[in-house]
């Protein structure tokens, strides 16, 4: 059980990357990027997890009560905000691409090369 979250994080990272590399649809691609990012959430939370620890709220509990690490949770929240911003921007680009050029296939986005 101890290593399961790390394995999940690694799996999410790789499967998301695979999705991006092979993607034929921009919406799919943006979602794959989110999948890669969700691996970072899992990893961060796993690192701060403590077997039997309570939520990191230190009111009305005796000093020394084991609690999970609040720092990584704060990092995860920040990370979620960053992810939402990037996804929104990328989806807007995808919508624009579809509106203007009628395609969502990155293979046909070939204005820039060589």
């Amino acid at each position, binding site marked *: 059980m101890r290593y399961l979250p790390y394995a999940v994080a690694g799996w999410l990272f790789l499967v998301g990357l695979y999705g991006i590399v092979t993607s034929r649809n921009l919406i799919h691609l943006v979602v794959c990027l989110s999948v890669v990012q969700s*691996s970072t959430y899992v990893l961060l939370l796993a690192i701060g997890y403590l077997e039997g620890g309570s939520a990191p709220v230190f009111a009305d509990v005796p000093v020394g009560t084991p609690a999970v690490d609040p720092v990584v949770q704060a990092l995860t929240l920040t990370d979620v905000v960053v992810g939402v911003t990037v996804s929104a921007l990328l989806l807007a680009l995808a919508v624009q691409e579809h509106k203007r050029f009628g395609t969502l296939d990155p293979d046909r986005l070939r*204005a820039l090369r060589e």
Partner: protein
Amino acid sequence: VSPLPPLPVAIPLVVAALLTAAGPLVRRRLLDAVSTATAVAVAVLCGILLARSAGGLVLHWFGGWTPRRGLAVGIDLAVDPFGAGMALLAAALSAGALVFAWRYFETTGPLFHVLMLVLLAAMAGFSLTGDLFNMFVFFELMGVAAYALTGYRIEARGPLQGSLNFAVTNSLGGFLVLIGIALVYGRTGALNLAQIGEALAGEPADGLVVASLTLLVAGFLVKAAAVPFHFWLADAYTVPPTPVGVIFAGALSEFGLLGLARVYWTAFSGVEGAEAIRSVLLAFGVATAVVGSVMAFAQFHLKRMLAFVTVAHSGLLLIGLGLLETGALAGAAIYLAADGAVKATLFICVGILLHRLRSVDEDELLGRGRRLPYTGAVFLLAGLGLAGLPPFGTALGKTLMEHEAAAAGVGWLTVVFVGTAVVTAGAVLRAGARIFLGLGHEEPGETPAEVAADEEPETRGPRNRTPPVLLVPAIALLAGGLSLGLVPRLAERAEVAAARFRDRPAYAGAVLEGVPEPLPAEAEPFRWDPGALALGVGGAAGAALLALGSLYRDRAPRGIRRATTATLGAGVRAVKRVHSGHVGDYTAWLTLGTAALGGALALVLR
């Protein structure tokens, strides 16, 4: 605790928020004035910080949470001369770009100016912070503002693709950095750079340390556009509005190198045998310089050419810091500033060409630039600056790096330095000679039409003259890049700053214990030796010759021509073909590069 360091970050963010709130109420002129004044104010503040930090780290602990018993509980900004200098460069480029945008660029609403200010705040924050997680946050903020600015002309196809490739690859780079941060936090329980450094000092390079270092370095190399992480850069720098391109070409990718240097020296340099990373960084640097140079020379689209010049020179900077020596680091810092100013100058000249002549294609513009003598002079001079002609700051920085390479027993790197300077400057001078002097002739079938056709004019109104506000920033930036080589005692002061940057225990002591850093004595004054001068002048001459040679290559004997085509043509075509413009391919390269980096680091560090 100084109240000064947060201001260069806070002021542009607050102004950006106010401008967004005021929205359509703000007239364009006011928008220009306010945002330019903000950038100038940030530049002044960074100048003050630069001066203060010469006497020791300038620290700011947010909320007054200073370290307790040597343990960082709060978040700090720790300003050293290099950080302040980078922030100053970013602010100066932003100011120049915003002045340029006064007359140049049609915008609707305040969004363009707001994004420029957010980008500036993020660049300043990234330079000044002493906290690893804050580095990630500013890295991402810088990224998001830059993606949006890249795709600003969203109605065209190029900006859409450039912004998309940029956003996907750099987000992946950001995730690599974040995973690296998570692993290092799991190992040390710290996010403060000084604290991490203390925790890792003297530790062996075990699997976790190697993995976290790999991910952090790979993430920053994505931003720094090192081969094979560089693909996004050419696409992203080709398409944004010219004022944005000025900042991109001047400084953006260099922040990846600053991040790499900062994290290595403050956090990881105490790890046992950490300096073995040198050979890996040098290998990536050389590959980047070579690929960037070849691609730059093969371009006819001026913005894309400058993008690959940026890649090539990013490789030189990576070599400079990868040598892990004081003198080379000082040289890299000077080179970065001067080279950034010169590249920004060139980008502005390209913007003027687009304004006056409605094209940025070298071939289409053949001889048509003769009507623009001032722009032409600035462009060609900047091209010589790119070659490292003394007394440009680029020459000084390059010489310092070459000296250190020779002293470190890798003198052959001088060939890479000179070769890269000659080829990249040769490409720029070739374009300049063709456009502004009318030399050479058209190259049938060489124009990549799909790129050129997409370049829409960004300005309206009369275009029979160049408004001074377009040329003034170019001249100012060129003068800045030139005069950096003439500032008295600059090399010595940069070496002191570099020695402090490399001194991890002193940094940790200053941050965590408040012990003033020991200031190293200034080395003996730097003097140009004849060999270095000859190398600089020779490089510039070589670049000019290369430019002329490629313009008049049809006059060479047929045998020579055929031999060159046979030997170089296939290689160049292969390298060009790899730049497919497909984000999936770029991601595959990124994965491969990270794996290669990890394998190499595991080999050398363990």
